Each structure stands twice: as C-alpha cells, then as structure tokens.
C-alpha cells in the first residue's frame, strides 16, 4: 500500500445502467391511448344503451334482442356482440400489458428513491394503476353477473335464447329482469356505483394522457379534448352510477 491511501469513496467510477427498453415507451403509450379511447367510446355507447332502462322492460329487452339479431342473416345470432367482444378483448389485453410494462419500467428508471412531495394533482396519475386493477376486477364481475350468469350472478339469472320462426329470428331476452335482480342486492348495487367513480377518474386522467400520447400540441385542441373527456367521464359516472341505486331503491323495478 502506498503512503497516500485512497480517500474514502474517491476514484470510484460512476456507473449508469442502460435500460434499453423495447418496444419503445412512445409505442406503448400510443397503444394505451388508442385502446383506451376505444374503451371510452364503448363505455359511452353502453351507457346510452343502459338509459333505455327508463323506457321499461319491453323496450330494454327489445334493445338486447336487437343487439343479438343485428344484420341477421348476414351476421349470425350474437354476431355483432362477438365482434365487439373480440375487439374489446384484444384491446384489453394490449392495454393491460402496456400499462403494467410502463409501470414496471417507471419504477426501474426511478431507482430506489421514490418521489416525495408531489402536488395533489399528481394523485390522478399515481392511482391509474390501482384504478386499472379495480376496473379489471369490475369487468370480470360484470361479465359473470350479467353476461355469463355464473358465480356472482343473482339466482334468478336467465340467459337469452332464440328460436327461428320461419325466416325470422325471435330472441327472448331477459336483460331487464336480470339487471333488476342483480341490483336488488345492496352490496352489488353499491359495488357498481362505486366502480363508476373509478371509471370516471380513469377516463378523466386517461383522456389527458391520450391527447399527449397522440401528440396533440395545439393549445385549443388540448383544451377541447380534455374538457370533452372530463364531460364524458362525468356523464358516465352520473348516469351509470345512478342506475343501480334507482333499482335498489325501487324507482326502477
């Protein structure tokens, strides 16, 4: 050892690990924006359909039947629904995969010291992943409850059936009865209503993400887009969130 010893910690070289992220984060964010926008449009149309509840059982079930016979005989029974299920399913897988990948990459790129002292507004971004997990659970519960009719579904659940009368397809849908039966259970109605708040939070922050991921830089475009998504989020929360409560309290029965 030389007389001059190395001073504490000095002479060490700085190493910076390369992240080499593929596919690009920009690509992942675009995937999230595109699939997310598809979901928002779907959920909005779905909500408009839900509002037919106010027209009564007959109209509501007729709408359910219409969705199953749409474009018949060019599309088979439930053809439209299966096209939608496929498109939404693929979107869901992409959205979840991209979202979790981004989350994991973000933790890694930040390193071991997490950020503290953020402004309150940043919470909207922070809880996107948690909201995403809740929404995933919601989708499963919702499908079991009112589409598949297993597990968490009410005991009165009845699947739609169809018969051919000559050239005509006649559908016996029970969507209205199924829904009323399900939402008459207080915990289920509360679950749906609460999750609509989560949906609204996710759409609001997601919309703001989307316009940035799509590369919208014009100030007016950004403002209009944000307001539009906030409005959509609000409308969905109020309309969809109210329905289970109205059923629970017997306004719709």
């Amino acid at each position, binding site marked *: 050892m030389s007389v001059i010893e190395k001073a504490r910690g000095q002479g060490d070289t700085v190493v*910076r690990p390369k992240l080499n992220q*593929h596919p690009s984060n920009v690509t992942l964010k675009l995937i999230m924006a595109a699939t997310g926008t598809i979901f928002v449009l779907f959920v909005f149309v779905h909500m408009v359909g839900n509002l037919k509840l106010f027209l009564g059982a007959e109209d509501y079930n007729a709408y359910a039947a219409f969705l199953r016979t749409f474009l018949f005989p060019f599309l088979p029974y439930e053809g439209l629904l299966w096209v939608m299920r496929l498109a939404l399913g693929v979107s869901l897988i992409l959205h979840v995969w991209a979202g979790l990948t981004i989350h994991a990459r*973000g933790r890694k*790129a930040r*390193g071991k010291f997490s*950020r503290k002292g953020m402004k309150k507004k940043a919470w909207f971004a922070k809880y996107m992943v948690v909201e995403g997990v809740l929404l995933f659970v919601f989708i499963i519960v919702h499908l079991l409850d009112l589409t598949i009719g297993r597990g968490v579904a009410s005991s009165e659940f009845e699947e739609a059936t169809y018969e051919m009368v000559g050239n005509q397809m006649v559908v016996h849908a029970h969507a209205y009865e199924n829904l009323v039966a399900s939402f008459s259970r207080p915990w289920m109605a509360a679950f749906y209503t609460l999750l609509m708040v989560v949906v609204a939070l996710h759409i609001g922050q997601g919309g703001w993400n989307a316009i*940035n991921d799509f*590369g919208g830089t014009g100030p007016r475009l950004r403002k209009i887009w944000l307001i539009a998504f906030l409005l959509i989020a609000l409308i969905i929360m109020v309309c969809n969130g109210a329905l289970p409560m109205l059923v629970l309290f017997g306004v719709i029965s």
Partner: protein
Amino acid sequence: MKVTLDIWRQDGPDAEGYFETHVMEDVEPELSLLEMLDQLNDEIVEAGGEPIVFESDCREGVCGCCGFLVNGKPHGPLANTPACRQHLRSFPEVTHFTIEPFRSAAFPVIRDLAIDRAALDELVEAAGHVNVMTGTAPDADTVPQDHLTAEQAMDYAICIGCGACVAACPNGAAMLFAGAKLAHLAKMPQGKQERSRRARKMVSMLDENFGPCSLYGECAVSCPAGISLTAIATVNKERWRSVLRGRHSRET
C-alpha cells in the same frame, strides 16, 4: 432564523449514503439555498470537517448547474425556480430542510449532492443539435422566420439542462427535456432539415436512458425554465410524424 438541515452525505459513487443533521442557529432570510449551504460549509470547515459537495456556477438561473431535492421537491419549495434563486425569505414557514441529490437511476451520485447528468448529454449528442454547413454567415433576411415562430422556438430553447424534470418524475422520464429540444429545433430553419431523423434518434436514446411518461405533470412544476407540458406531446408528435414521413423521405 434558525434552520435544521438533514443533508445527504455520500463519499463516492459506490459508498453508502446517509443523512447528516446540522442545526444553523443564525441564518439570514436573505440567503438563497446555495448561500445557506455555503455558510454551512464554512462552519463545517472551521470545525475541521469535510464540506458538503454541491454544484453551482452562475447563481442567477441560467447555467443549470445547481439543483438538489429539498423536502422531496427538485430545486426547492418554490415552483419553476432554480435552487440558486430560492431565498429563505420566500418560504419562512419552512425551517426544516431535507436535502438530497436529484434522485433517478439515470443520475448516479458522484459525491454528496453532486450527480452525473451525462445521460442528458447523451440525448443532446444523439439528437439535440443541428448538423449544418454554416459557411459564411447568411444575410439576416435570407432565411425568413416569422416573429411568432421565433418566439415559440425560444420558449423551448430556454431549457437550462438542469435535470430537475427527471428528478421530479416518479418514473425517471426525461420527456420534458427531450420535448424542449425537439420543439425548439423543429421550429428553426436550420433544425427543420433533420426533423424526422432527430425524432427517431431522440426517442431511441430516451428508451436507453430514461423511463416512460405517465403524465404526472410534476416536471413542468419543477422546471426552472417554465417549459410547458406540451413538450411531452411534442416528443410523441415528432416521433409519429417521422413514421408517417417514412424512413427515406428527403427531409430525413
């Protein structure tokens, strides 16, 4: 005023870091955060200790050298202000300061509060510059550029390269910095020429060194140059534009 400081000490890149607590009995509220550290260093040296290492140069908000986390916030409690311009009088309610180096995997600590920001240099080397033969200086009006565009380019050119945006980001992203470069150069006659190639190189360098953007918006709060969050959309826009323009377009 009396202040308590918990300051990160780290002897070198590989050394373990720890917080060291100092109480300063008498600090002028007129001091900036850096001047407060200067005074503390005087006291430490007088007592025979090792002074705290931190970077600074201009002390007037133009060089981008200074910066550390103060109670978790890059540069200090004030928004859009570099550490050298944050004076104790502006936040008299804060008397306990936790001071750490900018935190991000892309910014390894060299010593105490000094960090290595070479990852940002790599972005500039990859795509934050223009390659043009300048020759002799052209006459002033041969390449016309309207006033508004020039001002908009300037709004993004004023990034001082401090790295606060990266330290502010819970994801360790450098989108604000990269977007400022792309937005600035895309608006200039010299920069326009390599617009697509620049966007591609910038994004691939971002993917090498920095995390993804989740739009927390914290970067724009911390940025001492006041770069707007629109810079984030610019990165995405420039990258997708380069796809639409194709790899072999004349402009490249």
